[in-house]
């Protein structure tokens, strides 16, 4: 994975060398004993990452010292809260390397960010216009476009997936037409871990003047991003998947596009003037942030970004890749017992999100049995039913790693899986 480093974002704590024990010490939850006896091995990071104390402290500190509503007040707490919220926006803008911090819209998560685009940008589409998604999408990047299709009569097309579990960008030239207005795909698959060939997607989109949205939910915890270098138009992330609080996320959109879009939700803060029958809209980003935003959560997300800046991403990526290699090798070794990796076989152009199927064993049973070993996995369709359908799978089990995982986690996973297989198959 290529990691782009924008200007470092604000003060934040001091950056130590990458030391997994030191990192773990910042996540007391990792010391939990499951069922009161087995150590937790948290391998469900693609569903939600854990939060370091640094972020929990920031969240509490904000509410305990600077709590007020933002934007509207002139009293001291209101100014403090407004400044903290604005600082969080700046941090996110830097983390994504936005052109301008006004391009950052705080939302309640990736799902609401994509729904915002499907409604605000969607309002500019006409019947017959095409939106291209992929067969690998999370439901959050499928259903909003299906709802738009029902509302506006757009046409929905899907890029196929290769047998390796990658978006098959080679199919794009056949799919794009002069009616294509948007290609909305995931940056990183939450099932196969594959990193999308964004350059090819952007090239295909630009060849017909279409826009590109990336669902960055699974990419955002793996170090700073560069939306400018990616060359896309919209980017969506969730706080709870990047060491930050739940209840917050962000949409980045190119300024010149956002500026001409109509609002999506109506309410306080997003207006310029309101009369009983008509209103006019505030500038970007306020236009898209109706109502009281998730203030404390945005502040916590800013703290998560500060915290991530303390990590040597290259070293962290190397660390998790080494663990992921062991997971992949371990699964491969169980091939003769019906285990199959669903996704790329090695760590090239891939994050450490590893789904697998077991002949004759259901993911829920596997996950439940692994839980008795303290190993937290996720099983099911991972909100990617079309992909599972395509592969004729009722579901998969998924181990997803974060930088705080260790060899002990991998050992527990592989031993536990061995045990589960002996009981289930």
């Amino acid at each position, binding site marked *: 994975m290529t990691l782009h480093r924008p200007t470092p974002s604000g003060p934040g704590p001091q950056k130590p060398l990458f030391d997994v024990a030191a990192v773990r010490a910042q996540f007391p939850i990792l010391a939990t004993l499951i069922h009161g006896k087995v150590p937790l091995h948290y391998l469900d990071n693609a569903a939600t990452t854990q939060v370091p104390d640094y972020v929990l402290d920031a969240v509490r500190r904000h509410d305990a010292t600077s709590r007020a509503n933002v934007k509207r007040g002139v009293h001291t707490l209101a100014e403090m809260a407004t400044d903290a919220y604005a600082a969080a926006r700046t941090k996110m803008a830097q983390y994504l390397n936005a052109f301008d911090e006004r391009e950052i819209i705080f939302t309640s998560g990736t799902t609401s960010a994509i729904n915002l685009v499907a409604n605000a940008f969607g309002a500019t589409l006409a019947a017959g216009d095409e939106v291209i998604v992929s067969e690998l999408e999370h439901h959050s990047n499928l259903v909003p476009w299906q709802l738009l299709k029902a509302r506006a009569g757009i046409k929905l097309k899907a890029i196929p997936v290769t047998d390796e579990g990658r978006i098959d960008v080679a199919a794009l030239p056949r799919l794009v037409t002069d009616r294509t207005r948007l290609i909305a795909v995931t940056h990183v698959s939450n099932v196969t871990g594959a990193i999308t060939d964004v350059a090819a997607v952007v090239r295909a989109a630009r060849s017909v003047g279409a826009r590109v949205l990336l669902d960055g939910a699974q990419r955002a915890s793996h170090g700073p991003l560069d939306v400018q270098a990616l060359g896309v138009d919209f980017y969506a992330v969730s706080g709870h998947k990047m060491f930050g609080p739940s209840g917050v996320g962000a949409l980045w959109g190119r300024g010149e596009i956002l500026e001409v879009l109509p609002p999506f939700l109506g309410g306080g803060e997003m207006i310029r003037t309101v009369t009983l029958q008509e209103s006019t809209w505030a500038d970007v980003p306020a236009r898209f942030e109706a109502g009281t935003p998730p203030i404390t959560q945005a502040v916590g997300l800013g703290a998560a970004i500060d915290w991530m800046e303390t990590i040597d991403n290259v070293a962290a990526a190397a660390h998790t890749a080494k663990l992921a290699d062991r997971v992949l090798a371990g699964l491969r070794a169980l091939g003769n017992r019906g285990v199959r990796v669903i996704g790329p076989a090695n760590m090239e152009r891939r994050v450490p999100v590893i789904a697998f199927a077991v002949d004759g064993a259901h993911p829920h049973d596997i996950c*439940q049995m692994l839980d008795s070993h303290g190993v937290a996995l996720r099983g099911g369709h991972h909100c990617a039913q079309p992909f599972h359908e395509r592969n004729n799978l009722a579901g998969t089990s998924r181990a997803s790693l974060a930088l705080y995982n260790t060899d002990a986690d991998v050992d527990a996973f592989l031993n536990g899986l061995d045990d589960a297989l002996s009981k289930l198959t």
Partner: protein
Amino acid sequence: MIDALYQKDVMRLAASAKGAGKLPTPTATVTVDNPLCGDRVTFDVVMDADKRIQEVAHTVKGCVLCQASASVIGAEAKGETAESLNAVRDTLRGMLKSGATAPTDGKWAALVAFAPVSGHKSRHECVLLPFEAVIQAAKKP
């Protein structure tokens, strides 16, 4: 506590897969999905003139608990009506949700094997889904 979930009775019920398969000429077929995990259970039934189940078969794309539950139905559903199955389901649900007593005797006594599932809310649906499917099938006009 997990081992309790997968105790021998449950594993045996699942493995026995009573009633697994398809009926050649069902009077009704119903497929039910669990949106949370993607499990899918299909029940074929042949109903008699009294609205009693005459024949039953199921296809389960689901976990051991779901298979075991379907297997109990496959073994015991003949002669039941939608209403009587509803009552069985209510008893089962009571056992799962509030630790109420399970049917310890009678034809549905095997359901007691699911008692340890009560501590795992996320798995309740796995056990209940086959009942949902067969009840819907038995209700179909």
